[in-house]
């Protein structure tokens, strides 16, 4: 029974983005304590600067084609991990910019807010890379810890506390299922690395273990029947955190799901395709039908998020390289449209202190910019051409058609129609209904910046998706000859180490 770990300096370069972010967030905390007079908005810009450096580093890695494995194969850096890391860092930057004004509402701990957001971002960056059950568990919990606190951040607001508590209870419950699942898989195989698990014979214990792990990951992405925390948590949490929660952890969890299904469970594809088809149909239908009845915009976006996850699961159910490209591209379009929609919600809530859909009446008369931006984001979420969401949905459906999953596609198409209905109700309220209060609304520069980035992303991905699709296709090259024994990418370092 020996366990050895050899790490050299050149190996650690693979973790450079994470190391930079770790140092930077410690710096943020020190600056917050050491300079109490510093306006807290400055910390928002400082955090965004740090993330910009990390983003530059990740893009450089991606262009150089850096890849490799670290810590006895626990941590892998390949192009898929880089894709998800870039996605998460980008989403975090937008969320931080969008929280700048919202943070003024907190009475205490304004500085620690940025620290916690960066901490969760760090956890999710690590979530893009795990290659065994242990690192999967640690990174999942690491990223969730920050969110437990962030969701309950509005201390005087009973709804936020309640949301935090509900999120916490279901989060740790999911962690309990995950650990027991891991223990069963380990007991049956004696291995924890994803690719080594694939090589062992199948037993009932392994099935239960993987079902438990899937249930716990299902909690994280909020797929039906593991969705019960989503609406309450989204409703009660501070709105920028809702925006963050609706994208980054889900994207990061998909990185784990893809590795798990494509590497460990490759041999069992016929079985898990059925499971995923079922979960996908339930998520889409439940999310869209319940969304119709919602009166609060955050709850509506929560249910629409459950339905969107159902859409992404179509790609996973296809179980091909094309399906996986479609997942990556869809998540990219979803980041822009969803962060954008939440940015509008944050801007409106900063100005009128309300999240009720009724208060969006006549938004066009009060702020044509906000109304137009919301229109674009909602249409993109619904999947209307020529916006990004359309290409994303098209790509996912094409991947499913190739695998002849016709039932799934029919349900998906019906659901697009249902979702169109409740998205257009908001559009009708904004454009046709008369406003109750006619005073014009002025949007702050940082909110404008976020909304413009969202609009730009939604339009560019919709009109000229080619380079982004190529990026997604390149990111999943390691699955191109998707076979039971998919190996980890070899260590290629351009640094002469």
């Amino acid at each position: 029974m020996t366990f050895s770990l050899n790490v050299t300096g050149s190996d650690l370069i693979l973790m450079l983005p994470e190391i930079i972010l770790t140092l930077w967030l410690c710096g943020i905390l020190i600056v917050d304590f050491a300079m109490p007079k510093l306006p807290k908005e400055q910390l928002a810009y400082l955090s965004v600067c740090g993330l910009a450096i990390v983003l530059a580093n990740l893009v450089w890695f991606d262009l150089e084609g850096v890849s490799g494995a670290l810590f006895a194969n626990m941590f892998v850096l390949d192009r898929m991990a880089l894709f998800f890391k870039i996605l998460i860092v980008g989403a975090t930057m937008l969320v931080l910019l969008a929280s700048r004004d919202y943070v003024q509402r907190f009475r205490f701990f304004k500085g620690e807010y940025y620290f916690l957001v960066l901490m969760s971002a760090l956890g999710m960056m690590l979530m893009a890379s795990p290659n065994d059950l242990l690192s999967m568990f640690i990174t999942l919990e690491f990223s969730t810890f920050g969110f437990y606190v962030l969701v309950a951040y509005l201390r005087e607001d009973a709804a936020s506390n309640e949301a935090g508590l509900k999120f916490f209870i279901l989060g740790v419950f999911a962690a309990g299922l995950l650990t027991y699942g891991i223990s069963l898989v380990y007991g049956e195989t004696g291995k924890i690395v994803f690719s080594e698990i694939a090589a062992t014979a199948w037993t009932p214990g392994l099935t239960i273990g993987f079902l438990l792990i899937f249930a716990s990951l299902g909690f994280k992405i909020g797929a039906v029947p593991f969705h019960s925390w989503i609406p309450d948590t989204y409703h009660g949490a501070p709105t920028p955190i809702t925006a963050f929660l609706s994208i980054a952890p889900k994207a990061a969890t998909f990185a784990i799901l893809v590795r798990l299904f494509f590497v460990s469970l490759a041999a069992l594809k016929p079985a898990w395709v059925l499971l995923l088809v079922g979960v996908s149909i339930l998520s889409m239908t439940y999310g869209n039908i319940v969304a119709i009845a919602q009166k609060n915009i955050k709850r509506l976006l929560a249910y629409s998020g459950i339905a969107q996850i159902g859409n992404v699961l179509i790609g996973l159910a296809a179980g091909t390289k094309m399906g996986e490209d479609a997942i990556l591209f869809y998540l990219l379009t979803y980041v822009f449209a969803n962060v954008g929609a939440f940015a509008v919600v944050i801007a409106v809530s900063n100005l009128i202190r309300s999240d009720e859909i009724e208060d969006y009446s006549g938004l066009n008369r009060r702020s044509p910019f906000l109304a137009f931006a919301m229109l674009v984001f909602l249409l993109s979420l619904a999947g209307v051409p020529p916006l990004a969401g359309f290409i994303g949905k098209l790509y996912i459906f094409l991947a499913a058609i190739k695998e002849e999953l016709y039932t799934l596609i029919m349900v998906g198409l019906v659901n697009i129609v249902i979702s169109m209905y409740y998205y257009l109700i908001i559009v009708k309220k904004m454009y046709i209904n008369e406003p109750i209060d006619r005073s014009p609304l002025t949007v702050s520069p940082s909110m404008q910046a976020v909304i413009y980035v969202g609009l730009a992303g939604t339009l560019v991905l919709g009109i000229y998706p080619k380079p982004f699709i190529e990026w997604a296709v390149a990111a999943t090259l390691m699955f191109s000859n998707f076979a039971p024994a998919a190996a980890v990418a070899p260590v290629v370092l351009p640094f002469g180490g």
Partner: protein
Amino acid sequence: MAVPLSAYIVVSAVLFTTGLIGVLIRRNFIIVLMSVEIMLNAANINLVAFSHYLESMAGQIIALFIIAIAAGEAAVGLAIIIVVFRGKISTNVDEMNLLKW
């Protein structure tokens, strides 16, 4: 006399089920939190027993990490429960009814 592996697995399965039922039916947050800890420790027993019988180190290392993370969970969870308790003077699940559709 060596204890067979199956004994450990049975104990762990019973503990896990106890925790699972506790989370699902108990109405007090503190007890729900304790039930989750029981679930995590069921996994620990499994991991250490498997680690011994498979003669591989990985299981014990995972168990160590689970203990550390469980401690962190308890800290964060109790902090949130205290914040809620200050506002409501209650730790009952059924009184959490502000958010519903």
